[in-house]
Structure formats: C-alpha cells, structure tokens
C-alpha cells in the first residue's frame, strides 16, 4: 500500500468515526437533553381528552326560587368518527340532516369541523371540542324530528339524538334579570388565553357575563375527563383515565324574584310613561337595596335582552344588536355602568356641605328667581321666585338658587379663581364622605367608577384638553363653531384648570362634570337612611354545595361611615320626608299608606341624539322607606326621561307597592314581599322546582 492510499484510508476512517459520533451526539440531545419536551409532545399526540361537562350550579333568589337552572334539551349530534368513515365523508348524511332541521348545509359542515381543520378567518362556528365526542348540531330539537332521526339509522348513520343539559333562565314571574345573571356561552380562544384559561376545557360552556362569569369558578363544577389513547389512524387503543364530572355549586343571591320582576316592570313602565310625555326615554335603571346590609334586592337595566338566546346560538343580528347604539346598547348594565349627572338628588350632599360650613340648617333663606354669579345670572328651576323659606322646605320644593348662593359664597371664601393653599372645599369633602370617588364594590363585572369634578379633576381635565380649546377655531368641527361654544372654549383655554364660580354653583345642584351610577346613588341614599353607614353592594349571599353544605357566605361589608353630625343626618332625613309630604314628590306619593322619604332629580344633559334632537333631561328618584326605621333604598333613573317625579317617581312608587303589598292606597294583608318587613337572613332550601309565592 502506498503512502497516499494509507493516508486516504486514515482520512476515511476519521471521517466515518466522526459521522457516527455525530449520530451519538444528536441522539444524546434528542433523548437526554430535549427528552422531556419530546415526551410531552408524544403524550399529546397519543392522548385525546373527551370532556363531559359538569351540571352547572343553580342561581336562586333569597327564597330559593331558581333564576338560572339547567334544563334537558334534545341534542342532535354527529359522530365525526362514524361519518368520516362513510365513502363521501358524511356529505350526504349532513345534507339530509340540514334539510330535516331546516339549517344550511354549510353551517352543519362548519359546526362539525374541529377549529384546526378550518382555515384561519373561517372558523366561526367550528367545534372547539374533540372529534371523539358527539358534536351537537342543535341543542333544542323538536322531539318529532329527533324521533325521525333515531328511527332511520339507515338514512342518518352517525347521527344521534340525546338529552343534553342546557342553561336555562326560566323567567318565572316574568323576570328577566339578564344584566344581573349574565349568560353562558361556548369557550373561545380569548377565554383560553386569559389567566383563568388554563382550567377550562375546549367545548365547555362557561359564564360570559353577570353572576355567571363572576361566580363561574363555583357554578361551573369540574368536568369529567375521559382520556383515550389513540393510534395514528385515530383508532382508540385504550382508555387511560375516566373521571366523573362533579356538579357545580349553587349560588344564593339576595334578589327576590317578585321584587326583581316588579322593578323591571316599573322601569319599563317608566320608560313608556316618559315616551308618552314626549321624551326620548331610551334607557334606565332601577335598584333596590337593603340599607342595613348593602344587599341588592332587585336590579334592573333598560333596554334588556334575552339571556336564553345564547344557548340557542346567537344569530349575527342578535349579536350586533346587543352593542348597537341605535338599540341603546342593551348589553350595558346601566345600574353600574351608566354615568349620569345626579341633579337635585345631589342636594343631600349640599346639605351636609352647608352644615359643615356652619350654615344654620334651621334658619330660613331666600329663594330668588336668579342669583348673579360673576357676570352670569344662574336661574332657579323654571325661574320662579319663591321668597323666603326654611332649608327643609327648600329641599322639598327643590329650590336651586339657595344652593347657588351658598356655593358661590363658599367658593369666594376659598379664594375664587386664586384658591387658597388649603381651601375648605366643603362641597367636595361632603361628596367624598359619601365615597363618591370609590366603586360600590358590587359582585358583578365591569362596574364604572363615579366621577367627582373637584380641583384635581379639573387639573387633569385641562391637561388633556387645553390643546383643543386653545386652538378651538382650527380643531372644532363646523357644527361646533357657535358663538356660545367659541366663548366657552376661550374661557376654558384661560382658566380651564380652575374650579370656576360656575363650576362650584353647578356642583351644588348635581350638574356639571360630576356623574354617578344609579347604584352609587342608591348606596348614598342607603347611608342617609341607615344613619351613615356606607355598605358594599352585594348580590351573592352564599355558595352552597349540591348536598346543601354551605361552603361560603358573603357577609355584609361596611366600607365607611358618614362623618357628618347626627343632627345633620336627622335634618336631612326629615327634609327628604318633606319632599314626599309637601314637595316635588308629594303628588306621586299622595295617599301612599307607607311613609316614604326621597328626592327628585331632573338632570340637564348637554348634547344631541343621533337623530339630531336635543337630549332630554335625566329623570331621577332616589329614596328610602319606611321613613321611620328605614329598611329599603330604591333608586330609579330614566335616561332622557324628563321630570324626576312624573317618570321615575311613579316608577319608584310602583316598586314600593310591590315591597309593601300596596294596592291603590291600602296595604293588602299578606301581600308584602317580606312578611316581617325585612329580607330573609337564613338560606333557603335549593331545588329547581321551587316556585315563587303568589301574592294574594
């Protein structure tokens, strides 16, 4: 062998040894270094989870009457494994089925595809579960049609009809409560990507809004999981685990189905009444609270929607209507998401402010037709000069000018446009004492925070808007270039960061930039009624297991106490009673057998409707009752509803009629919702069959 051959042989040997050592290295990487990753990957390739949803817990009212339960629907299901084995992959069967169920073939096809099988963007309606479980085409089939399918397996191979549990809001007593209960819907990719997504399984229905989402972790239960081991052809080789579903826990609320129904009806009637009087009346809210605990006894929002529509499968039209401005956004829960100027109902805050500032609550004040504030004259309501009167009377007849004068004087005392370094700010402090800047803390998602237009607010507002107002003529639209608005813009540019005299005066009668939710106002009036305690608003009372074990009780939570003197509160309570006796609420409650205390509010709204008309006033009525030893706070608001008394006041009276069992002007014995005058403190027995008590 010559030298070159020997060398070549050596080179070949080194090369070949290197190649095999490279194989060993790669083997080490795959099996040892990256082994765990590949083991996980192998596991996910081999196993398929079939999820059996747990029975969802009931949502019941304080007497145990179901507000949300599960009913048995008849599901028509398609077995993907079976139809895929058919020569045409089930096309003929699906076409026959679509015709029978009066559906579109395309929809049936999409419904039975796994989401991964469809191109991105065309996945709407795809099946989020696994192919090993029957895929429902409809959950509420007509039994006759279901029978046709079951009796003709030759025509419908791979199609089956089976009872299935679906969420149902039975609407006993014509109750809707959609904004409180919420609804359930199929799990989406968004749900999975959230923090809580890990605990969900595809194909599950989960809470999407209201109490259903707030208490989903309790209501949902634990789905049963059957893990199947499959081979490459997706044939099942064995079962590796099979856990039974554990039913979800029941939720006991403080709502009363009859009261809820009455509140909804009263609100809907109020809206109708407002419209009959020529007001737009596009929305509203009504809240009933137990003022000794903060528990919500009824909560309604208008307009509403059908919570049962979601389980049936929402049409595109239904889905877009939910958020349509034209339909006044039915999805919005106005009781806790709507922000409105509180108007005269806010004078209760002004009383507390005046008392703190040292005004004699028992003295008399003049109520002129207007008060000169700087260069502008602020008019009384309807520009009426009502002469000299006591402060109590001023509340009752809702005089504005007395408050203008007090607010203007206090504003000047605090330094006017050049405020002192530590101004008294009695009005802002009084509002803060009512926790106006904090949420009511209700156990429903997405509560809006009320807004207090104090000095800090003005500063931050100015920071965000000075660019616009200081360049108003170039930035504003043509429609906005009216002489009044141009002057307003010029003023805003100069001292928009300051609380101006006009701001202070408006604040005293609940106008301007201060806005509250109806729920916040309820909490405030509850505090006036109960002697100063600010309660957290709650709907849930307890979580109860299916066997009756109480696993969690939601106790009333005191958020704070009004610091005002007891005498002030007493005066305020008396003044609010006077409103109903001789003031703006007297007509509405004339002859009512139970003593009610309350305040009307008619809030001016700046702006125009989509159809170009000027926005109508916000109608308020905030109240508590009985006046002696009060227990309930009732607030109603109708957006663009007109006058406080005639629209909302009458609505509140209807709610009190239900609470106290009043027909006409007399109390019907046994007709009151709460027999001993207060909401139940014990937990009810829970059964889907519980029926509400009918009034005599």
């Amino acid at each position, binding site marked *: *062998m010559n030298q070159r051959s020997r060398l070549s042989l050596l080179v070949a040997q080194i090369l070949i040894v290197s190649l095999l050592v490279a194989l060993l290295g790669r083997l080490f990487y795959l099996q040892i270094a990256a082994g765990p990753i590949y083991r996980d990957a192998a596991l996910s390739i081999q196993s398929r989870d079939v999820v059996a949803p747990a029975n969802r817990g009931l949502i019941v009212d304080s007497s145990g009457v179901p507000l949300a339960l599960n009913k048995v629907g008849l599901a028509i299901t398609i077995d993907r494994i079976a139809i895929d084995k058919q020569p045409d992959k089930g096309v003929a069967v699906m076409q026959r089925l679509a015709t029978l169920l009066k559906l579109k073939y395309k929809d049936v096809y999409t419904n039975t595809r796994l989401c991964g099988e469809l191109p991105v963007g065309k996945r709407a309606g795809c099946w989020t579960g696994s192919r090993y479980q029957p895929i429902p085409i409809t959950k509420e089939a007509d039994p006759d049609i279901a029978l046709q399918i079951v009796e003709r397996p030759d025509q419908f191979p791979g199609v089956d009809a089976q009872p299935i549990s679906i969420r149902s809001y039975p609407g006993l007593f014509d109750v809707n409560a959609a904004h409180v209960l919420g609804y359930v819907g199929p799990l989406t990719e968004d749900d999975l990507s959230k923090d809580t997504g890990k605990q969900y399984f595809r194909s599950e229905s989960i809470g999407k809004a209201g109490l259903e989402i707030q208490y989903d972790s309790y209501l949902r239960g634990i789905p049963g999981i059957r893990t199947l081991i499959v081979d490459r*052809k997706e044939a099942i080789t064995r079962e590796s685990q099979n856990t039974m579903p554990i039913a979800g826990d029941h939720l006991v609320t403080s709502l009363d189905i009859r009261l809820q129904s009455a509140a909804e009806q009263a609100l809907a009637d109020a809206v109708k009444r407002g419209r009959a009087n020529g007001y737009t009346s596009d929305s509203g809210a009504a809240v009933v609270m137990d003022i000794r605990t903060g528990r919500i006894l009824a909560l309604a929002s208008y307009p509403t929607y059908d919570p049962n529509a979601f389980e049936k499968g929402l049409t595109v039209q239904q889905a877009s209507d939910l958020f349509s401005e034209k339909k006044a956004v039915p999805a919005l829960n106005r009781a806790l998401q709507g922000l409105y100027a509180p108007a005269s109902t806010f004078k209760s805050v002004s009383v507390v402010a005046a008392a703190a500032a040292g005004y004699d609550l028992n003295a008399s004040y003049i109520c002129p037709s207007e008060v000169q504030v700087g260069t502008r004259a602020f008019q009384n309501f309807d520009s009426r000069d009502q002469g000299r009167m006591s402060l109590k009377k001023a509340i009752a007849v809702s005089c504005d000018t007395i408050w203008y004068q007090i607010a203007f004087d206090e504003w000047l005392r605090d330094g006017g446009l050049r405020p002192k370094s530590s101004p008294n700010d009695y009005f802002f402090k009084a509002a803060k004492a009512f926790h106006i800047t904090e949420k009511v803390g209700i156990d429903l998602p997405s509560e809006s925070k009320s807004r207090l237009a104090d000095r800090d607010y003005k500063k931050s507002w100015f920071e965000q808007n000075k660019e616009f107002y200081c360049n108003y003529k170039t930035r504003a639209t043509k429609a906005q270039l009216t002489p009044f608005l141009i002057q307003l813009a010029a003023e805003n540019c100069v001292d928009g960061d300051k609380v101006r005299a006009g701001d202070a005066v408006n604040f005293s009668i609940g106008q301007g930039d201060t806005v509250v939710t109806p729920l916040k106002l309820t909490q405030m009036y509850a505090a006036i009624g109960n002697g100063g305690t600010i309660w957290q608003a709650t709907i849930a009372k307890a979580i109860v297991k299916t066997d009756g074990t109480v696993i969690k009780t939601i106790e009333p939570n005191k958020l704070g106490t009004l610091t005002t003197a007891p005498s002030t509160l007493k005066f305020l309570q008396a003044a609010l009673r006077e409103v109903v006796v001789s003031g703006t609420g007297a007509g509405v409650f004339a002859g009512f057998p139970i003593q009610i205390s309350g305040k009307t509010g008619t809030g001016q709204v700046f702006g125009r409707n989509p159809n170009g008309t000027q926005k109508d006033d916000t109608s308020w009525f905030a109240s508590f009752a009985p006046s002696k030893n009060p227990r309930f706070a009732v607030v109603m608001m109708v957006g663009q509803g007109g006058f406080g008394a005639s629209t909302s006041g009458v609505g509140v009276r209807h709610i009190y009629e239900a609470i106290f069992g009043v027909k006409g002007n007399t109390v019907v014995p046994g007709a009151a919702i709460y027999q001993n005058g207060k909401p139940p403190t014990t937990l009810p027995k829970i059964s889907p069959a519980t029926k509400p008590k009918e009034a005599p």
Partner: protein
Amino acid sequence: MSQIAARQRLYRRHRSSIFHGFDPVLTAAVVALLFIGTLLVYAATRDWYASNGLDPQYYLKRHVINITIGVLLAYGTTTIDYRLLRAYTPIVWGLGVIGLIIVLIPGLGSEVNGAKAWIALPGGFQIQPAELAKISIIIGMSMILSERSHDRDEPTSRDVLQALAVAAIPVIFILIQPDMGTVFIISASVVTIIAVSGSPTKWVVGLLLIAVLGGVVATNTGVISDYQIKRLQTFVDPTVDTQGTGYQLRQARITVGSGGLIGTGLFNGPQTNGRFVPEQQTDFIFTVAGEELGFLGSGLIVILYLIMLMRAFAIARRTSDPFGRLVTTGVIAWFAFQIFENIGMTLGLMPMTGVPLPFISYGGSSMFATLIGFGLLQNVHARSRG
C-alpha cells in the same frame, strides 16, 4: 514458496472449519445487530398486526427467513476466494444493470412511495436491483483500480475513468427511479474507493467538488422530483398533512426523543404501537430502538456499528492485496454512509430518503446485500492472514 502453494494452503486451512478465519469481533457485532434488529422488527409490527386480526409474527417470521437466506449467502460469499469473484464480476454487474432497467419498465417494476425501485416476484416477494448494483459497482471498480501494469503502482487516469464508467451506468438508472439515498451512498463509496486506490489526487478532489455541486444543483433546479422536494420541505401543520414528509420526520424525532435514557421497554412504546411513524419496520426502524430501548439501547446500536466498521478498517489495512483492500473500503463506505443516512434522517440531521438500516431493517434485498457485503469483509479477512 510459490504463489499456487500458498493459495492451496490457505484453501486447506479454510476448509478445516467453516468458521475458521472469521473475524470474531466483527462477527459478534453483526450477530448482535441482527438479533437486535429481529426484536425491533417484531416490536414494530406485533401490536399492529394483532390489533388488525392478523398474525402478529408475520413480519418476524419473514425477517428470520430473510436473515437465514442472507447468512447462507454470506457464508457462500466467504467460501469462494474473493479473487475468483473478479471472474464473475462482469456477470454480477450486468445482472444488476438489467435489473435496474427492468424496474423502470411499466408493468414489471412496482412503484412504492414514488420510487420505481422494486421488481415484483410471484408470491408477494420483491427484489431491489439497486442493492445488487451496490455490490457489483464496488467489486467492478476495485477490479479495474487494482489491476495495473507492473511498472506502475498507482491507477492511471484512464483506470479511474474506466472505474467511473462502471459506477456511472447503474447510477444513472437509479437516478431515474429516483432513489437519491442510494445515489448518495454509491457516490460516497465511489469517491472513497478512488481515494484509497491511490489514484491521482486531482480525481479525488474533483469528484468531491462534483458531488457537492451536483447536490446543490439537483435541489435548486428541480432535477429532484416533487416527491423529493416535498420530502425535503419542513413540517407545517399536523392536522392538514397527516401523511406528509414533515409529519413523518417530526413524528420520528418525537418518537426517538420520548424514549429518554432507558426507553419504554421493548414492545411497550406507545408511539411505536400506535404506528405514528410510518415505515417503522423498514426505513424508520431506528425510531423503535429510540423509543423502546432509549439512549442506552439506541446508543449501543451505533456503537456496534462503530465496532464493526473499526474491524473492517483493520482488515483493509492488514491485507496486502490491493483488490481486497479496495473491496473492503467500498463495503465500509457503503455501510457507513447508509447507516449515517438512515439514522441521520430519523434524527433530523439528513433529508428524508428511503434507505434501510443495515442488518436491522426488515427487507430481503437489503438484508441479502448487506450480509453479502459482510461475507466479502470476512472473505478478505480470511485470506489476508500470514
């Protein structure tokens, strides 16, 4: 001592015992590989056949028959003096080329996985002439490059050209099939044989350059068929293409990786038993070793190959006969590159091609050819002593 006397003495010594003159380490390594291979073929097919109501030992039985025939062929190869093979080489080569032509004739050749590489025989048997061609090319080239005039010790360029022609004709037919894996293995063997033959360096360097260029051009200009391009492309979406190339390669990697250090135990691999990897008794048999025997078991297979190849290199170095050395070198290159291509593909280092794993994969033609190759190594070994 005359040449004839020496030859007769070798012959007698050889006849005294049928195992006399076998390299014991080489033999042990190959026997171990055959044994492991048999277990793996059984593991790859047992559950699948049983669950489909078929004889779970169907593949096992046929594999054992293949090994038996292969061992007989290997034994036959060792008994003939390899130097007499030179006389038969043109016949073997000619048969190989004819076989390669037959597979391309529609109706005679059968197409599997997009390649026309098999001749179907009665009784469900198939033979793959490309395997036979490998042997004939190695022997043919070795013959030309080792025969030379007495005044020169090295092959001339003319010898090299002749040898290349011997290789080129069958390779062209294999390219038409197309079977890129086999072309790669033969090319690697050709370059190795020419290098070790002591041919002018320019040829070695030139051929290496041509091989690299050829590979690049083939992949870029579409000489490689769609089926092969697809095999080279990466995996995209498991739900769309469950039969595709990317899927297979990914499944192969997952299966091997999931084995970990000690594996799931023989017959217990869920990936194997679920048949997630296609062709797992033939081209992808190493995945079975990876999953069920783990790093220890599959690493052992690589080490057994390493031992086998090291012994073969020792044989090539020890023999004084240039022909024997070139045959040995050719067989080494063939085995080594086929092993690297097969396992490399399974582990995601090499593109996917359909070459079996020597001594382990199920398949008659491959088993016969590799055992004949083993016989050639033993033959050269036996006759290189003393």
